[in-house]
């Protein structure tokens, strides 16, 4: 059969109206930050998209004061039904402006437009819609007696799913009656700032949502601020531990969604083509910038060679390049720093003796890029089998028995997710019981839904986001 080249199919940027600079969103309006400004660039082209303010300690003070005032005077006094109606409004506006958000997300983050359009933005809207309905039903949620908000919640989110993580954080916080000071990641602040406009359009009372941009010190200022009652953080395990130490001995609560090193386990009776698709989706979705990515493939020894062949053939067809192209499968690495980290860890992998293979595809000359890469001959002690790479790199290990697969899968400090591929139902259920992971995908991977609790065991953090369980983190109960 002849193979046909793809013609370029770029999504238009015209829908996005970028300003040259953005302030902080405090008390319902954009204000200038006190710190120096920094640039947010497109990782696919290194083009400067906008200048953004670095929030200082004084700015954080203002944001927390605005959130506290909004909490005391407005949000905590409003009926759940009315809070819910604001969330419904937000969900609807996100749907109405979905294309704009998708294009901006892809510009700022580097992820393929098909993912921002079909995953990030629709699920973000769904999170608001789902939680809107909880706002007046909290006493039915089996959270304990007299569920009530903590007050002001500080939220710090990562760069891999900027708008979606914002939705995971803000929707349950607002539904339960808390007000919010949220910091987006320094490399991907733009959709959060566009979300601030959504809050204005929804006529959300000023101060209920405050968005402050900046880097690590800004996040630390939020964590340490005495006016913050609860922290919700998604990011690296290292920073998660710092936060846990920072709030030790206080009465601040925390939910931490941290790193992972998920095993995707393929048995010899699995439907091979389906499993190959699942493995590819598991690690190359969003350039592997996914905390629950299936970064370790555990394949049963008897099919390892055949699986390896099919996997590599499939990787050869992945289209890497312009994130705005609707046919692109793998986009740009989010930042120079992340690319450096991926390069460093893959060099270590080679140095430790694992066998490296990549698809050899052409890469754009500007921007940050990394070819989909597979390491075979990986052993348990290799750093690429233990440490989170957070890039499009798969480490392949083999096993003989289900017991061995479980032992290897659980042999990391992480415990966020796991995958099982087999046609045998009883084995799926046994494996699911044994795996120390907060989310187990059987014969599928990387599925997300607002009703489905997400979060990890062990050093992948604590607390859950989504579903009834996700509400628990945002309320206190009892007398």
């Amino acid at each position, binding site marked *: 059969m002849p193979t046909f080249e793809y013609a370029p199919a770029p999504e238009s940027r015209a829908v996005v109206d970028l300003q040259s600079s953005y302030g902080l969103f405090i008390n319902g309006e954009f204000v200038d930050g006190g710190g120096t400004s920094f640039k947010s660039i497109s990782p696919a082209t290194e083009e400067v998209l906008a200048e953004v303010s670095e929030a200082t300690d004084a700015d954080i003070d203002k944001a927390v004061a605005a959130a506290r005032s909004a909490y005391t005077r407005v949000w905590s006094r409003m009926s759940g039904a009315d809070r819910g109606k604001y969330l419904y409004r937000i969900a609807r506006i996100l749907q109405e402006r979905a294309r704009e958000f998708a294009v901006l997300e892809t510009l700022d983050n580097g992820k393929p437009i098909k993912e921002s359009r079909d995953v990030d933005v629709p699920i973000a809207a769904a999170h608001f819609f789902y939680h809107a309905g909880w706002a007046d039903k909290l006493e039915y949620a089996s959270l*304990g007696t007299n569920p009530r908000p903590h007050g002001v919640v500080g939220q710090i989110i990562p760069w891999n799913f900027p708008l979606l993580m914002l939705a995971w954080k803000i929707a349950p916080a607002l539904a339960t009656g808390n007000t919010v000071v949220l910091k987006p990641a320094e490399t991907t602040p733009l959709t959060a700032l566009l979300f601030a406009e959504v809050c204005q359009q929804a006529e959300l009372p000023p101060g209920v949502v405050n968005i402050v941009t900046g880097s690590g010190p800004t996040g630390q200022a939020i964590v340490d601020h005495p006016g913050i009652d609860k922290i919700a953080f998604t990011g690296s395990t290292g920073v998660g*531990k710092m936060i846990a130490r920072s709030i*030790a001995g206080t*009465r601040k609560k925390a939910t931490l969604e941290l790193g992972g090193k998920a095993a995707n386990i393929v048995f010899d009776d699995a439907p091979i083509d389906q499993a190959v698709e699942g493995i590819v989706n598991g690690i190359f979705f969003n350039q592997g910038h996914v905390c629950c990515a299936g970064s370790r493939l555990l394949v049963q020894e008897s099919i390892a060679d055949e699986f390896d062949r099919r996997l590599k053939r499939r990787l050869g067809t992945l289209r890497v390049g312009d994130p705005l192209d609707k046919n692109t499968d793998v986009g740009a690495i989010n930042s120079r720093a992340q690319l450096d980290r991926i390069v460093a860890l893959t060099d270590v992998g080679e140095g430790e003796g694992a066998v490296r293979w990549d698809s050899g595809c052409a890469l754009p000359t500007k921007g940050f890029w990394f070819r989909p890469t597979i390491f075979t001959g990986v052993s348990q002690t290799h750093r690429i089998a233990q440490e989170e790479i957070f890039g499009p790199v798969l480490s392949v290990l083999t096993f003989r028995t289900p017991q061995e697969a479980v032992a290897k899968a659980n042999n990391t400090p992480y415990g966020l997710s796991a995958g099982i591929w087999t046609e045998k139902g009883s084995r799926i259920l046994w494996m699911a019981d044994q795996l120390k992971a*907060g*989310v187990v995908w059987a014969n599928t991977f990387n*599925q997300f839904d607002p009703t*489905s609790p997400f979060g990890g065991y062990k050093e992948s953090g*604590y607390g859950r986001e989504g*579903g009834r369980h996700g509400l628990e983190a945002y309320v206190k109960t009892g007398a």
Partner: protein
Amino acid sequence: MARVDVKKTYKLYIGGKFPRSESGRSYEVYAAPSTTRRPRTEPPRFLANAAQGSRKDARDAVTAARAAQPGWAGATAYNRGQVLYRVAEVMESRRPQLVQEVRDAEGLSPAAAEAVVSQAIDRWVWYAGWSDKYVQILGGLNPVAGPYFNISASEPTGVVAVLAPQGSSLLGLVSVLAPIIVSGNAAVVVTSADRPLPAITLAECLATSDVPGGVVNIISGKASEIAPWLASHRDVNAIDLCGAADADGVDWAALEEASADNLKRVLRPAGEGAGAVEPDWSQTPDLSRLTAFLETKTVWHPKGR
């Protein structure tokens, strides 16, 4: 002539056995002054030499707990419920001994001690009954927007270190321990420093109740000495800091900070700000002490013909 009675040696409880402390140390335990009678001038009454647990004892206990935990979690919920109910049966059969020890430990009147022991036994029964129910209450099917079967269920966190309450030597201890083990966790308990004897007698109840060795390990001694090693232990999944209230030399903030090294789940002591107070154990509990040591696991599977 009065009979010379046979006195009990109070030892540690680790891995289902009753060893002395590996350190060879013991410390003197005295009866609390009566809370009901007028103060007397006579010296405190000597009760026993309790084993003084060490950091090595704590580590041995964690090893025993880790070894026992998967089997305990893997037992059926019905089985765990029966085993825990059996603990209550054995406590009931030792009621006079428990009452005397609680009287001595806490300086209570006979009637008050009877009431406390009754409540402790009843609380054990209450938690035992939860073994095959909380999973249904807390989990279930999630209606995801797609052709998937999606279900969330609770699992035990793993090995839990516990600082037992300093004041309430039996009721408080039962109120923190039962909700931890009912879900399949294993526990390493540091007893009240001044009131360790009811805890060791509870250990004897556990040892004769089909609770597998290692599921509960009890170390008498000083929390200030042992707790830092448990808080920083990499193979402990969670820590209950309840007993930091009124414990000499225990800084719960420092323990929580050390717990961050492997992101232990931390149940802070009750109270406001940096303070810590012991809860009123006579209050009916809710599920919060049970849910503090659970993980939620969510499993997805596609639907199709």
